[in-house]
């Protein structure tokens, strides 16, 4: 067992109203799992990702990563965890426009105190691994959408993270490029990478080995892909989307 969430609750205060984005959620993810998190917007999947990624802290409950209790850690400690153990891939890539691919990829290494030469060497390796060996000196505006996302994935991988968190990584890409990126994720998974991916699309979720479906801050279905009932079982009516502001 690598990740264990136990009774995790996250409450946001909106004025006097208290909204539970996560409601006593428990989740366990093992080494080398490939998990898709699905659910309508407002179901709490982004909050879950933020907590898994140590960007946010739960109001109550415990979070264990590799046997370490992270919910007790301070800001500096969490920054260190984000830096060494977690790789983030965002829907909108989040590359720094003025830096070329190598510099974008080596950004996390700056904060782990690795020297200039070590950073470049490591960044080159990872860029080659994601198939961008010939695009190392290009800036984001000289790259296509798929290439940008590859750079972002390389940046997430450069620290050898224990877990790769991807928030709708294909959300901004066309279907052909999406397929390529998903193939890359499949590759990484085969090489032993643990991946948690948030997605809206059933086709994307089909690539994973396990599908977690959320609604109202709770998990209502958590099954291996082959046993998953698909959207027909969605209690929200099966449209896959929910209106904003629906009570949770």
């Amino acid at each position: 067992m690598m990740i264990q969430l136990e009774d995790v609750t996250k409450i946001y205060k909106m004025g006097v109203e208290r909204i539970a984005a996560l409601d006593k959620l428990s989740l366990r993810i093992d080494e080398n799992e490939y998990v898709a998190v699905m659910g309508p917007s407002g179901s709490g999947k982004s909050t879950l990702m933020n907590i898994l990624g140590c960007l946010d802290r739960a109001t109550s409950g415990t979070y264990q990563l590799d046997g370490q209790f992270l919910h007790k850690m301070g800001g500096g400690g969490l920054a260190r965890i984000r830096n060494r153990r977690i790789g983030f891939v965002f829907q909108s890539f989040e590359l720094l426009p003025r830096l070329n691919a190598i510099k974008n990829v080596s950004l996390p290494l700056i904060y782990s105190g690795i020297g200039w030469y070590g950073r470049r060497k490591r960044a080159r390796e990872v860029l080659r691994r994601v198939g961008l060996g010939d695009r190392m000196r290009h800036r984001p505006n000289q790259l296509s959408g798929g290439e940008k996302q590859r750079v972002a994935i390389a940046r997430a991988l450069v620290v050898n993270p224990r877990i790769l968190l991807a928030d709708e990584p294909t959300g901004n890409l066309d279907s052909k490029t999406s397929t390529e990126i998903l193939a890359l994720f499949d590759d990484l998974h085969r090489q032993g990478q643990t991946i948690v991916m948030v997605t809206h699309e059933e086709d994307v979720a089909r690539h994973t080995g396990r599908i977690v479906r959320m609604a109202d801050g709770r998990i209502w279905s958590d099954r291996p892909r082959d046993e998953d009932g698909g959207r027909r079982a969605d209690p929200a009516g099966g449209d896959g989307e929910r209106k904003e502001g629906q009570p949770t």
Partner: protein
Amino acid sequence: MIVFRLLLGLGRLLIRSVFLALGQIWANKGRSVLTTIGIVIGVASVTAVIAALTGLRANVLADFESLGVNKIYLHASRPDKGRHKVARWNELMLQPDELDGMLDHCPSVVRFTRISEMPAAARFGEQTVDARIIGIEPAWHKIEDRPILEGRPFSLIDETAARAVCLVTPSMQEALHLDRNCIGQRIRFLGRAFRIVGVVEPATQFGVFGIGRKNEEVFIPFRTLRKMFRGGMYAIAASRSPEASEEARAEIRFFLRRKRKLAPGEPDTFGAEAIQKFLEQFEQMATMVTLVAGGIVGISLLVGGVGIMNIMLVSVSERTREIGLRKAVGARPSAILLQFLVEAIMLCLFGGLIGLLCGQLLTTGIAAIPKAQLERSYIPAWAVALSFGFSAGVGIIFGMFPAIKAARLDPIEALRHE
């Protein structure tokens, strides 16, 4: 070991922040230049003002030096309390014999000269010139820095025999239409004829004070003058060294008080002032003026600092997503804080450097203004250090708020920022 590693880490963080800041400043060249203008103007004006005041001070000091810094002036003075408050001047006046034995009793005093002055018309042939007739003792030549240009100085014999000899200045020589070699010629004043034995260099014209006396001077032995005229006199004493002048002054005071039989608690009936003391007072005053003027101009640096703060705040808010990303990939708040703080400091230091160059240009310009007595203006090393220190200080103070703002950003919020 732990301390060493901590220092190493901090050094790395700092170097990295400096490179980041340089990149950022370069990327926003135009904006960076506009931002630093406030600092540039501030530093330029502060250094120029300091340079000008330094030049002025140097000129005044040079004037003081020409007066002689080891001299002590002795003169009668009416105290403003005690029994001598109502004494007549005749009683208070210095008498020549009062100073007898002063060298024996005052070890810090090496020599002194009694001096007495009176105005008189000097005549040679058809020419008449209004002059100051000054009676001096031979020691005067060693106290005043006024070499003999022609002929010879006064000797002990001139003094003891009260000879009718005189020294003139070159301007006197000209005004009276004396021969080019006037040694041995006779001029008349105070109803007697005096033989010229030498020509003495004219007194230094005081630049800053502007009180160079135009009167022509004729010097005669003190005793010669004293025989014809029993007016007031004063004396100039010289101490061993400029440093000993205060000591010499105290010894003279003690000596004269005893001569005049002043009881303890009674005020002095004479004055003894060391040039060195004026010099020190002036130095203090000049330093104060420099600091105050520099400080007032320094306010413009604060204005420049506000400009820096403003632009850093803009920078923080337009780079919110970048900050969010950096935090998401593991930048600690301290690293973000340092990044923005170093950027502000670098901006200020660049401004300081350019300002210093502008200040040097201004100083060169000021020094070239004719008749402004500022030709000695220069930027002292401490002003350079001060400008950079102040620039860095402004950077730290005004960069702190935006940097803290950046460091406190919530990464989730920051990444959502449009």
